């Protein structure tokens, strides 16, 4: 089945130690997104790629970076994780084209990040 895969499902890192989360998709979708979801809160968009075009949200901290080497893969890099960065990180995809398709997003299971 076509899907969005995130690895690892659980990640523990130390305060200030860089960490990379990965996402892959078999849907062949143009757009890939990264969301942060803290406990009991709604998902919050960090950034997204439309093909190779990177779109950063205005309030996303510089500590968060992303790479998309090809259509299938996208990475979230946290350069110096702080305790406040502990959260579930969700990757999602959508088809390109009209905005209606943008709002039909397919989410991965998420990576739960713990910062010690």
């Amino acid at each position: 089945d076509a899907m969005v895969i995130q690895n690892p499902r659980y990640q523990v890192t130390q305060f200030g130690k860089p960490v990379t989360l990965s996402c892959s998709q078999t849907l062949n979708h143009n757009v890939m997104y990264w969301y942060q979801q803290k406990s009991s809160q709604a998902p919050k968009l960090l950034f997204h790629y439309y093909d190779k075009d990177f779109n950063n949200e205005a309030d996303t901290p510089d500590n968060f970076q992303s790479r998309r080497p090809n259509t299938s893969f996208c990475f979230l890099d946290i350069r110096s994780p702080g305790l406040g960065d502990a959260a579930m990180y969700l990757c999602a995809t959508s088809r390109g084209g009209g905005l209606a398709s943008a709002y039909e997003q397919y989410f991965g299971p998420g990576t739960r990040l713990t910062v010690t």
Partner: protein
Amino acid sequence: LAKTTQPISMDSYEGQEVNITCSHNNIATNDYITWYQQFPSQGPRFIIQGYKTKVTNEVASLFIPADRKSSTLSLPRVSLSDTAVYYCLVGDQYTGRRALTFGSGTRLQVQP
């Protein structure tokens, strides 16, 4: 950016129909209305999307009145497994952003 308002929580019993209403008074002409479901420790799942009138799929129905200032997600005959958070989202056509802005959602608790 169209803002959405929905109840924080709802309770129901198995077998009942559940209707969750979302208010979006400043919806733009070309905005779509989309609903997602999220179970604990999982990513949100797309349920249904509509522009006007009624949309139905195998999971739910979406009712949108003519003025489009609100929408109602209808879940027929809920079961315990429908216990989740339900998010109503309205497209940001005005700025052309492709991103989703999630509101606070409605936490549905289904009792036996």
